[in-house]
């Protein structure tokens, strides 16, 4: 199957055509049309605030990326970076404020329910919380059959046979058809959610933190299952996660988000071995590494992520960046390839080389820790939380 090929495509080829990321300069893809093409995607939530009258939370602010058939793109970032909002917009659970989403060559940005219907079958979502994502009053059979039923599809052999097939595919006993979600463990529930997403034989699945609510020993089971499915069925994935190690094991390409923007996007090898954006480097070095004992010499970011209600001018990362200069406050860096690198980075002063070997090895951002927080105490926490509700 072509999925195999896709998975093993050489990074050089896979990366071409993705380098120029802005809408105008996006070069035509070499390996066929992208399955999903996102340009300038934005979501702004109005917030009401008793004192200041209100404002806009720019949860997602101008994303450009493509996903090709059978490709896995990881969307990583910390809480509040807009990755989940992006995922919901892709499957049209949220209405984008601006930008376009093209799926299989069709603009679906504002398509109505009827227009979307044929596309729904190709575009599915897996949720984070295995407890909230299954209707507790429905049997497993009904849950998995729901997408078929809703779309009035009667597969050859009948719905029941198809559901059994799906349950088997995700490693569940097909005889458990008549059981209820509460009779399953977290990992098994997540498998049920995956079976439901597969029911319509989609081409692209948005997986929103599919393993972060699971116990460590169960996480690996589900990651392996998703990898197998991706390979065997030739599925494309947008894999949303905060755990960079999990993303590395699942995704061919990775986009790093910060405050509603993509700050770096590229092939797995590039992102993990040669990250250029200081934020990517800080993220990677912050992950506790079991292979190194004791406190590691890591990049310490001070402060918190600023509020998306009032993001910093210019480069949004500058308030926590140890390399920030005057230009960072005035000019927003574009997401373009730098210094001959293959990945695209939105930074005026990109780094090079592996984390820990570059000049940032022991970089510690100095200055008052308040820099990231100073934009208004209540706003940082409350603004973001209001949006997430």
């Amino acid at each position, binding site marked *: 199957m072509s999925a195999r090929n896709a998975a093993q495509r050489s990074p050089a080829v896979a990366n071409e055509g993705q380098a120029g990321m802005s809408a105008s300069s996006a070069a035509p893809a070499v390996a066929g049309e992208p399955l999903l093409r996102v340009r300038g995607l934005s979501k702004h939530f109005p917030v009401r605030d008793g004192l200041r009258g209100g404002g806009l939370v720019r949860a997602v602010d101008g994303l450009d990326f493509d996903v090709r058939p059978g490709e896995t793109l990881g969307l990583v970032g910390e809480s509040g970076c807009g990755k989940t909002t992006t995922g919901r917009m892709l499957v049209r659970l949220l209405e984008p404020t601006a930008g376009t989403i093209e799926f299989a060559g069709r603009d679906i940005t504002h398509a109505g329910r009827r227009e979307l219907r044929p596309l*729904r079958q190709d575009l599915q979502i897996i*949720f984070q919380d295995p407890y909230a*994502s299954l209707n507790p*009053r429905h049997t497993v059979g009904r849950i998995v059959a729901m997408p078929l039923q809703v779309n009035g599809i009667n597969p050859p052999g009948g719905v029941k046979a198809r559901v059994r097939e799906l349950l088997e595919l995700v490693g569940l006993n097909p005889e458990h058809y008549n059981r209820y979600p509460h009779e399953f463990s977290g990992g098994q529930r997540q498998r049920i959610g995956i079976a439901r997403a597969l029911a319509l034989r989609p081409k692209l699945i948005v997986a929103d933190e599919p393993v972060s609510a699971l116990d460590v020993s169960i996480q690996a089971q589900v990651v392996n299952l998703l990898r197998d499915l991706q390979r065997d069925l030739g599925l494309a994935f947008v894999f949303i996660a905060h755990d960079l190690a999990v993303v590395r094991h699942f995704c061919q390409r990775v986009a790093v988000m910060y405050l509603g923007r993509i700050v770096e996007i590229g092939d797995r090898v590039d992102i993990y071995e040669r990250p250029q954006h200081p934020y990517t480097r800080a993220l990677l070095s912050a992950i506790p590494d079991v292979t190194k004992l004791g406190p590691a010499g890591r990049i310490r970011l001070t402060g918190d992520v600023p509020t998306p209600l009032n993001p910093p001018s210019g480069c949004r990362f500058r308030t926590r960046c140890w390399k920030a200069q005057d230009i960072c406050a005035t000019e927003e860096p574009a997401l373009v390839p730098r210094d001959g690198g293959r990945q695209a980075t939105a930074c005026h002063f990109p780094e090079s080389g592996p984390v820990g070997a570059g000049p940032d090895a022991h970089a510690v951002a100095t200055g008052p820790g308040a820099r990231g927080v100073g934009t208004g105490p209540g706003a940082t926490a409350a603004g973001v939380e209001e949006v997430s509700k």
Partner: protein
Amino acid sequence: MSMSPVEGVALAEIGAGGGADVPKEKGFVGRSPGQLAWIRLRRDRTAMVSGVLLIFFVLVALSAPLVELLYGIGPRDQFQGKLDGFGMPLGYAGGVSGDHFFGLEPGLGRDIFVRLVYGLRTSLLIAFAAAVITAVLGIVLGALAGFLGGWLDAVINWVTDLTLAMPFLIIALALTPTLTLRFYGEREAVSPAFGVAVLIAVFAMFGWTSTARLVRGQVIALREREFVEAARASGAGLGHMIFRQLLPNIWAPILVSFSLAVPQFITSEAALSFIGVGLTEETPSFGRMIYESLDYLQTDPAFVFFPGITIFALVFAFNLFGDALRDALDPKSSR
């Protein structure tokens, strides 16, 4: 008095994880949350006792004519011969005897027991009908307001506030004769069935707000649940999401609120009769009997006692059962 909303009704099962719900490997047909609640209910002695009592009350009410036949006395039969010169029943405790289980009414000398049996029928009929209508109204309005939000939600909310701001008893007091006069002339005899229908209508007008608020709150809490989003992401329409995904998850609190609304309507019906609205003299009703009995508080306490205790037993049984039902549907709520 306000009809206070059912508090603390949370969803059963969801997130009730922990050591208890480990998959059982035997048997391939699972037990639904409803079946589990039923099993818990069956194990609850209070629930079973109050449930049996309720069924008994309902059976008695349904078979009122049969009771009359067996008892041999009708609700309108008068036994003036068993009253003394002041119209007081002869004998002890208001004339309790083998012929008249609960004694006789002073004045008219009617049999209290058989009138209570018919009063029970009237009260239960009104209460159940009102509870069903308010539940349907409340579910529809609450679910729409909660799910769709926006201006519809604002309008329904405002109407709810308005309804709550109207003094129920006073409006009911005024509305009942008004409605009656719209359909019957000044001197025409009003059929008892019409009186009952008017009462049900008045209750429906004022009673839907608590169910609507409850359902609205539940729907808002569930609306953003991922299983609803999963349906939406699969292209499900409004009907599927409300009826297939949401409502099955809020039956539990609705059921509890229903089981507690019935005794509330029984109480309200009695309260209305008490201030002199509602049913006509010949329709036997709890409230009317108590209202009339209060004049005999000193002279014939038994006349106050029997209707009072019967209505208490009925409402108490409902409340007990409602509480047990809540515990069964939501094991976390108390205990």
